[in-house]
């Protein structure tokens, strides 16, 4: 009789267990298309079998476990953050690259070539008024090109600032929604698939903007720390970030809720890329209170050298000194390119062609100016290279930055897809099966890794052969 009751009890437990499994499966089907939903599993545990003590074996339902592996979720968030960062870098650097034309058909590069040609033409007919007029006109074109590039960079600074403000607002809004979920979840430790899904979806959205760590607390709430350092969300309290533009450096700051500087902690996601653009990349071109920036350095050195050569000359009468061609704002080293212009009122007659020497050379000044195109003397160079090369390097930096960011974006997109796939693969896999797979993986990784190393070396050898 006792055995019969035990058998019936065992059957009853099994039926209850399978009923719960069915409920979990139905829940999975119903939420299959819910963003951020994690498949739920109900493990069945074996019960002990001992006829002496009346234990009849069978199965019972264990605690409902979320198949969402926190580890897999974190990996997806890390890759989302990396992808957000590289996507933003591509967008920003594309705008920057468009300001620098290296083809020589427009912008500073073309204007510089035109001016060098007019110096050369003036050297061939030093007393020709048209040749001098052409020098003044081309100098005006070059100044306008510097102004235009500086204006484009300043516009990019403003856009980046606006995007920083929008990103910080977006981060605060998402953390605010997470805080609402924390309030709902506190004290309600049992897993609610709907709330879990919302929380994971919000965390994934947030990771696009910033890099953070999220950890689940015993009371069911989630704690979010910016880059593992600055609190954004703890229990029911949200700690909002603030964007503070300044003159720099740094030009843009992110402040934590207590007013502390959290800029250094804001390295990942879109926010990290925008800060990099605003605080590092753009000042390297346009300057800030700590540096003039390459565009201003070039504008100043070129204008100063041209003026120095021109004012060292004398007019055909042998006494009247030559006039300076360029002028700019001398009070702010970061405003040279934006303010560069041809000195108002300068006329062709004031451009002195004669180098007084001794010996005096009638076209010495335009010849000296022509030398700026292919400089030999250190005084005609900037950082040891010609002005054209210096500009080319500036443009190439923008171009290669854009190309690198594009390559990084491709890799990050693939890595994100991989992390999402790995999350999907681990969901619902038993620990036994997983342990076996891990060993198989390990062997396969080693074999592939050796081949990748060989291929990497082969491609580098290929590049070397092609370049030598």
């Amino acid at each position, binding site marked *: 009789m006792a055995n019969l009751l035990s058998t019936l009890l065992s059957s009853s437990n099994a039926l209850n267990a399978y009923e719960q499994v069915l409920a979990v499966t139905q829940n999975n089907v119903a939420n299959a298309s819910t963003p951020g939903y994690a498949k739920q599993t109900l493990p069945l545990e074996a019960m002990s079998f001992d006829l002496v003590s009346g234990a009849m074996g069978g199965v019972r339902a264990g605690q409902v476990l979320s198949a969402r592996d926190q*580890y897999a979720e974190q*990996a997806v968030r890390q890759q989302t953050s990396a992808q957000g960062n590289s996507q933003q870098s591509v967008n920003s650097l594309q705008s920057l690259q468009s300001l620098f034309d290296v083809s020589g058909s427009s912008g500073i590069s073309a204007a510089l070539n035109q001016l060098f040609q007019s110096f050369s033409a003036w050297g061939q007919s030093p007393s020709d008024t048209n040749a001098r007029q052409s020098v003044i006109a081309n100098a005006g074109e070059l100044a306008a090109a510097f102004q235009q590039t500086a204006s484009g960079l300043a516009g990019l600074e403003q856009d980046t600032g606006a995007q920083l403000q929008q990103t910080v607002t977006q981060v605060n809004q998402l953390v605010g929604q997470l805080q609402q979920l924390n309030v709902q979840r506190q004290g309600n430790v049992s897993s609610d698939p709907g709330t879990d899904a919302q929380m994971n979806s919000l965390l994934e959205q947030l990771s696009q903007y910033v890099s953070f760590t999220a950890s689940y607390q015993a009371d069911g709430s989630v704690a979010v720390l910016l880059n593992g350092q600055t609190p954004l969300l703890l229990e029911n309290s949200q700690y909002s970030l603030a964007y503070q533009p300044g003159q720099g450096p740094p030009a843009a700051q992110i402040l934590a809720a207590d007013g502390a500087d959290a800029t250094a902690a804001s390295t990942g996601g879109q926010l990290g890329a925008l800060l990099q653009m605003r605080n590092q990349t753009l000042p390297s071109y346009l300057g800030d209170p700590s540096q003039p920036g390459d565009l201003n350095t070039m504008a100043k050195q070129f204008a100063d050298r041209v003026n120095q050569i021109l004012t060292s000359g004398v007019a055909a009468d042998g006494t009247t000194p030559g006039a300076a061609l360029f002028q700019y704002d001398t009070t702010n080293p970061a405003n040279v390119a934006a303010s560069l212009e041809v000195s108002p009122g300068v006329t062709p007659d004031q451009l002195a062609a004669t180098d007084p020497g001794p010996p005096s050379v009638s076209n010495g000044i335009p010849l000296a100016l022509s030398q700026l195109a292919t400089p030999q003397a250190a005084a005609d160079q900037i950082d040891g290279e010609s002005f054209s090369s210096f500009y080319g390097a500036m443009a190439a930096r923008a171009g290669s930055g854009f190309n690198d960011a594009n*390559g990084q974006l*491709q*890799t990050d997109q*693939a*890595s994100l*897809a*991989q*992390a999402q*796939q*790995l999350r999907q*693969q*681990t969901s619902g896999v038993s*620990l*036994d099966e997983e*342990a*076996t*797979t*891990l*060993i*198989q*993986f*390990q062997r*396969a*990784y080693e*074999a*592939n*890794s050796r*081949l*990748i*190393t*060989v*291929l*990497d070396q*082969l*491609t*580098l*050898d*290929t*590049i070397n*052969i*092609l*370049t*030598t």
Partner: protein
Amino acid sequence: MGGATAVERMGTARSQIERVCGWLTSPSPETLDRCSGVLESAVAELAGGASWLAHARGNPEAMAEAWHLNRAVKRAGKLLESARQYHARWSRIRGAMTQGYGHQGIVPPPVLPGRISLQG
């Protein structure tokens, strides 16, 4: 002519590596086995390059293709490494969770549980 051959060879190797990149976004022991075969083919394609690359020196198209190829290899390497790290880290976490930390904090590898138990 020589340049075209070099470009074609590198293009073939690149398409093989890009196929591997596609597989590596969904890594499993089976896909990794397939990757090994294709990577070996890519190595064979590029091996002995000194002879056929010499004709392509200074060819900008060949140079561009070489850089594309190098980038594809680096991307494949990154994907392989991130998948390896994913499993290695999880393996360590799992080892620590199931067996604790050993001497000097070393985490033991996960143990394959026995599946059959016999009693007399």
